[in-house]
Structure formats: structure tokens, C-alpha cells
């Protein structure tokens, strides 16, 4: 048996979203089983199934070094405060 990751998308601008996973012997059976496992109540209009073996991943240790860079988490508040102060100065 293989494990497939299931992605669903509704009509419109919504993106494909991960819905879960399922077990199936091959691609064709995965499609057949996905319909009744994830689309019983018309949860999506489009379906992607990805064999988990084909998913490209990175080691946690490789991703981790970016966790301690708060300067990359700019929410714009420094610039906003600066501009606000400037407006107030100009107004006198």
C-alpha cells in the first residue's frame, strides 16, 4: 500500500488545501477511494493526489537556522511609527 496526500480546491480563487491522506494500492485506486473518503459531501471541485514518496522535503536541521532571525519578521510597525511621527511634526 502507498500513502497519498490529498489536496482539495473549491471553484473560485481558493487555493488547493491539504485535506489529509489515504492509503491505496496504486494511483487508480487512490482516485477511487479519495472520492468517497474526502469528497462524500462535495468538499471540493478539484482533487490532487500526491504519492507521499514523491513529496520533496528538507531536513529539520536544515530549516532551523532561519528560526532566529527576528529582523525578517517585519510587520511594518517601525516604518509606520516613523511616518506617523513625521506627519505630526509637519502638522506642527
Amino acid at each position, binding site marked *: *500500500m502507498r500513502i497519498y496526500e490529498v489536496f482539495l480546491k473549491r471553484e473560485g480563487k481558493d487555493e488547493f488545501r491539504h485535506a489529509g491522506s*489515504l492509503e*491505496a494500492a496504486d494511483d*487508480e*485506486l487512490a482516485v*477511487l*477511494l479519495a472520492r468517497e*473518503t474526502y469528497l462524500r459531501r462535495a468538499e471540493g471541485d478539484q482533487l490532487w493526489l500526491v504519492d507521499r514518496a514523491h513529496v520533496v522535503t528538507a531536513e529539520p536541521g536544515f530549516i532551523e537556522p532561519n528560526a532566529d532571525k527576528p529582523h525578517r519578521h517585519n510587520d511594518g510597525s517601525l516604518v509606520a511609527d516613523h511616518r506617523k511621527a513625521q506627519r505630526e511634526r509637519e502638522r506642527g
Partner: protein
Amino acid sequence: MIVVEGAREHLLAFADDEHLMGQQHTEWIGVAPFLEEDLAFSSIAQDELGHAAALYELLGDPDDLAFGRDGDEYRSCHLVELPCVDWADALARHWLYDLAEAHRWEALAGSSEPEVAALVARASREEDYHRRHASVLMARMLAAGGDPANRVANAIERLLPVADAIWEPVAGEAAALDAGVVTESSATMREPWRAEVAAIAGPLDWASLEPPDQAARTRRSEHFAPLRARITEVFALDPTANW
């Protein structure tokens, strides 16, 4: 309401098959080999019960027809009365039955009764799924070799005589054909069905099959009484209740 007596009997036989097939499939809810298959198989069971209800509605009160008759008033084939406690048997029966069911709906598509013809579109959409599910699974099991292949091959061999008897018509079939309520005889539909079965299962010796004693679908098998007792258990608590 369908009036031609033979047509009523023909549709009743189909409804009874759908009803009992659906009931039998529901036995696998929660115990199918894996979760995804459990969901697919119980959806199929639900579809079959829906087909039965729709057909019964054309003939009278669905509850009365489904639960309120004596055994000799049923027109089911023995295949749908059979208990299948092994998954290989349940799968083989699902496959043999749904390959046949597709032909039976097709034979109603051009029915002279508009209410009958109207049911076909919905049922056929659902049947496409049933047939694909059954055929793909069956082909994979046979291709797997070893124990899985042996188990399903043995199940097919065991079920074949009783499955082939799906095509034993009711006495009223000729009248149903004359009235145009159904447009293909059971005998005509049997040939393409046998070819489809053989296409996946390999060559089969049809001539030597010993058919069950169904007496034009008026005789129930030994398995009917316990099945009927089980499926009417809740209904019998209060036959006048509204569910």
C-alpha cells in the same frame, strides 16, 4: 404507478435485488479491510438501498414492500441472499452483481414508463462508480498473484453458478418486454455480462454451471429467512412508526 402486472414483477425483482444487496453490503461497515475501502463500500451499500427505495416507490409503499411481505412474495435472486463473511466473497459478489446491474439499468433507459426511465440517469452515474471500483479492485487482486489472487479466484468460482442465475427472469418478464417497460431480456443481457466477467477472470466453463433452484425467482434460498429476520428487526419494533 406501474400497472402492467409483468412489469411490476420485473421491477420488483430488481428492487428486491438492490435492497438485499445494499443490506448485505452494510454488514461490512466498520469491518472492511481498511478505512478507505470501508467508506467506499458503505457508500455503495447506501446507493443500492437508494435505488431499491426509488424502485419500490414506483410500485407502492416502500416500507411495506421492503419489510412487510412474506418470503414467497420477494423476487430476489439467490446471489443477494447469500451471506458473504469473507472479504474475498463480498468483493467477488459486488463485482459480479454490479457488472450485471449496469446492464439492467441500461435496459430501462428507453422504458415506455417515463418514471422508470427517469431513475436511470442518477442510478447510472452511481453505477459507473460501483463498476469501476469493483473492476479495478478485482483486477488488482488477481494481478497480485499468490494468496490474494487465489482467494478472489476461488470466490468467483464458488459464486459463479449463483451469480449467473441473476439472469433467471421472473414469469412476468415477457409481459414487461411487450409493454416496453424494459427493452432487453435477461437472456440477451447475460451474454455481454459473461464476456465482461471472463475478460477479468479468464475463461470460464459456463456450460457446466449448476444453477440454484430459484423457480423463476419465486423460491427463496435457505439464507433468506435469517437475513429477513435481521433486516426487519428494527422495523418490527413498530411497523407504523415514521422514521
